[in-house]
């Protein structure tokens, strides 16, 4: 990407501490829509042979060649591992692409495009060829784990929720975890609906999407000289030339279609009245403008994201759109020009995007999901030369701008790999903990469920801090087995899943799993409650350190939080100390979670965990 790593402080070149020899031994498994092997992001210039631990294959199909950067490829449908949509190439380059200078999308987002760990290797598993079937996802996990990848990134998901034993990503990620491999998964794009997150297993790292400090805007210059600023990713340059404006209802195909023509419904518009003009619509349907022969489109669009269209488009927020309509109604010959997009500094970043899926967790209500937030808006990264960026235009481009939790997921996978380069012996849960407890704090931006920890989890990923967390919450495979027993899976089932002797005499309540965040769902809102969380931290910061606890209540939270003991004395590295967090209160707001943060600090490291109590 050309901006998001800088935004997070992971600077280019010597600006960031690295462990190059270990980074070169790190393999990222990308389970996605394939890859474009000829992309500069995956050139192997300067790379040595694959790591010795690599047991995979280059089985990408005919005319598909791997190299010392892209060390493996597999496909599971007819054809090959080549990416046709650009999605897999994009995500792979976000996590692990080479540094490629002078990258841009038609001049937009210009800069040096790079992944989090440019010296690492990539193995691509094409699991989606249009659709992503369970049987194929499982095949790819089966292979990637055995091939010897270190981290798995999978920007795939469902809109439905399934029990853990029927969720292919949860199943694959469990067996990956058993082999020391962390799986990072996109939270999903069905927000801001409550409980829309479908990546729910505690052994995965679930990623929400947020803005960065760079945002694309598209100016509209009216005939009277006034300029309005809208949102879109517009690469087309009308060079300031103004075109006549036609409001949808003025281009209705019949009088009875005037209302639906305002919204630019395709069957309601007369193409002859639209052709050669800029179509103005109450709803964002740029494709209709394109098919009706419009030069461009100006639409009412208050959303916080936009996608690339095949013609000049700008989306105006409601107030600006009303002012724009006033101009159209008052001008004798209304006209305007849509300028090429430009980037501006976005000082409100990071803010969770509306589309990013929200908690709570339907399957394990006492495990907070999503876990973490990362950039997912207008990310410039590598593209497949098979992909067509604009409708039926046959233009092929090396880079593209994409948005989604698909883009935030490989950001965190890249950070996980970066952390692992400094701590190769760490378990998946230690890496996950390091990422979660060092995240930037984020705040509820509105007074509804969708803007709380259920949107952003622990906060926004901080790559540099994650590499030095001080304390980590480790979870062993045995802990997860006890957790499954606590979820009322019987001993026979847990034994089959884990492959180990299990009696389920030891059960862990989900809220007592040694998770880096703490969450509890209460049965009712109007009762007194006391909830206890048991946790154990492992010292990875340094010997002879003293960690003091601090609790910060989120504004308005009516919680009493007690930590016992309040101080942890760590004498040696890898020493473990346990503590208990007791949260009590009464009269919870049924419409909002109550939350706080527990911070363990030794003066150097701040190890922060969100505490979320909710009802209903």
């Amino acid at each position, binding site marked *: 990407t050309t901006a998001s790593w800088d935004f997070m402080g992971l600077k280019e070149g010597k600006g960031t501490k690295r462990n190059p020899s270990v980074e070169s031994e790190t393999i990222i498994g990308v389970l996605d829509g394939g890859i474009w092997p000829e992309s500069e992001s995956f050139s192997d210039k300067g790379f040595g042979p694959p790591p010795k631990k690599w047991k995979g294959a280059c089985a990408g199909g005919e005319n598909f060649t791997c190299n010392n950067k892209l060390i493996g490829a597999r496909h599971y449908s007819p054809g090959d591992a080549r990416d046709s949509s650009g999605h897999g190439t994009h995500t792979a380059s976000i996590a692990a692409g080479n540094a490629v200078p002078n990258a841009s999308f038609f001049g937009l987002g210009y800069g040096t495009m790079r992944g989090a760990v440019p010296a690492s290797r990539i193995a691509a598993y094409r699991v989606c060829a249009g*659709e992503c079937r369970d049987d194929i996802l499982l095949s790819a*996990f089966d292979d990637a784990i055995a091939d010897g990848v270190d981290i798995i990134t999978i920007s*795939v998901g469902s809109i439905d929720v399934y029990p853990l*034993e029927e969720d292919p990503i949860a199943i694959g990620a469990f067996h990956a975890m058993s082999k020391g491999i962390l799986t990072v998964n996109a939270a999903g794009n069905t927000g801001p609906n409550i409980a829309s997150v479908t990546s729910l297993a505690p052994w995965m790292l679930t990623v929400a999407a947020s803005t960065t400090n760079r945002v694309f805007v598209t100016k509209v210059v009216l005939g009277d000289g006034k300029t309005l600023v809208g949102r879109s990713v517009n690469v087309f340059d009308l060079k300031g030339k103004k075109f006549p404006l036609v409001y949808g209802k003025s281009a209705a195909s019949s009088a009875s279609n005037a209302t639906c023509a305002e919204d630019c419904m395709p069957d309601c518009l007369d193409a002859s009245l639209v052709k050669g003009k800029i179509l103005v619509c109450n709803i964002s349907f740029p494709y209709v403008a394109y098919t009706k022969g419009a030069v461009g489109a100006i639409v009412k669009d208050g959303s916080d994201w936009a996608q690339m269209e095949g013609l000049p488009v700008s989306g105006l927020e409601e107030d600006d759109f009303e002012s724009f309509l006033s101009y159209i109604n008052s001008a004798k010959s209304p006209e305007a020009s849509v300028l090429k997009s430009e980037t501006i500094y976005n000082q409100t970043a990071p803010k969770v995007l509306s589309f990013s899926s929200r908690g709570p967790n339907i399957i394990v209500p006492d495990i907070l999901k999503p876990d973490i937030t990362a950039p997912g808006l207008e990310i410039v990264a590598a593209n497949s030369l098979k992909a067509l960026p604009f409708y039926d235009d046959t233009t092929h481009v090396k880079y593209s701008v994409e948005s989604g939790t698909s883009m935030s997921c490989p950001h965190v996978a890249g950070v996980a790999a970066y952390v692992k380069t400094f701590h190769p012996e760490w378990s998946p849960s230690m890496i996950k903990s390091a990422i979660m407890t060092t995240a930037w704090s984020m705040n509820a931006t509105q007074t509804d469920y969708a803007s709380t920890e259920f949107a952003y989890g622990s906060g926004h990923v901080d790559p540099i801090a994650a590499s030095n967390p001080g304390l980590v919450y480790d979870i062993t495979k045995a802990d997860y087995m006890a957790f499954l027993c606590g979820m009322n899976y019987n001993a026979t089932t847990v034994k*089959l899943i884990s*492959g*180990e002797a299990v009696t389920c005499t030891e059960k862990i309540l989900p809220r007592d799993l040694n998770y880096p965040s703490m969450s509890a769902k209460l049965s009712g809102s109007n009762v007194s409650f006391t909830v206890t969380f048991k946790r154990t931290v492992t010292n990875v910061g340094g010997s002879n350190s003293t960690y003091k606890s601090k609790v910060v209540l989120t504004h308005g939270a009516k919680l009493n939080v007690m930590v016992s003991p309040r101080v942890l004395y760590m004498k040696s590295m890898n020493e473990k100390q346990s503590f208990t967090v007791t949260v009590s209160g009464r009269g919870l707001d049924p419409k909002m979670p109550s939350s706080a943060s527990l911070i363990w600090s030794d003066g150097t490291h701040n190890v922060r965990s969100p505490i979320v109590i909710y009802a209903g």
Partner: protein
Amino acid sequence: THDGQDKQEYIVYMGSLPSQADYAPMSHHMSILQEIVGESLMEGRLLRSYKRSFNGFAARLTDSEREQVAGMEGVVSVFPNKKLKLQ
């Protein structure tokens, strides 16, 4: 996905691979299928075998066959072969 004969694609998830050195996942999967559908009706039933990192297979089954497989020893779950999406 139905094939017109009321058969549907299912994932048969069987957990971790057994640690016995002589365990042959694919022949175990075939023998489960043979037991359920009969040798003469095996053609095209087994779609995939998972045998490198965990145990299980994908197969075309009728609803009653699915129920029989779900009740067999060593099977964790049997669920329809769903379609997920890039995000």
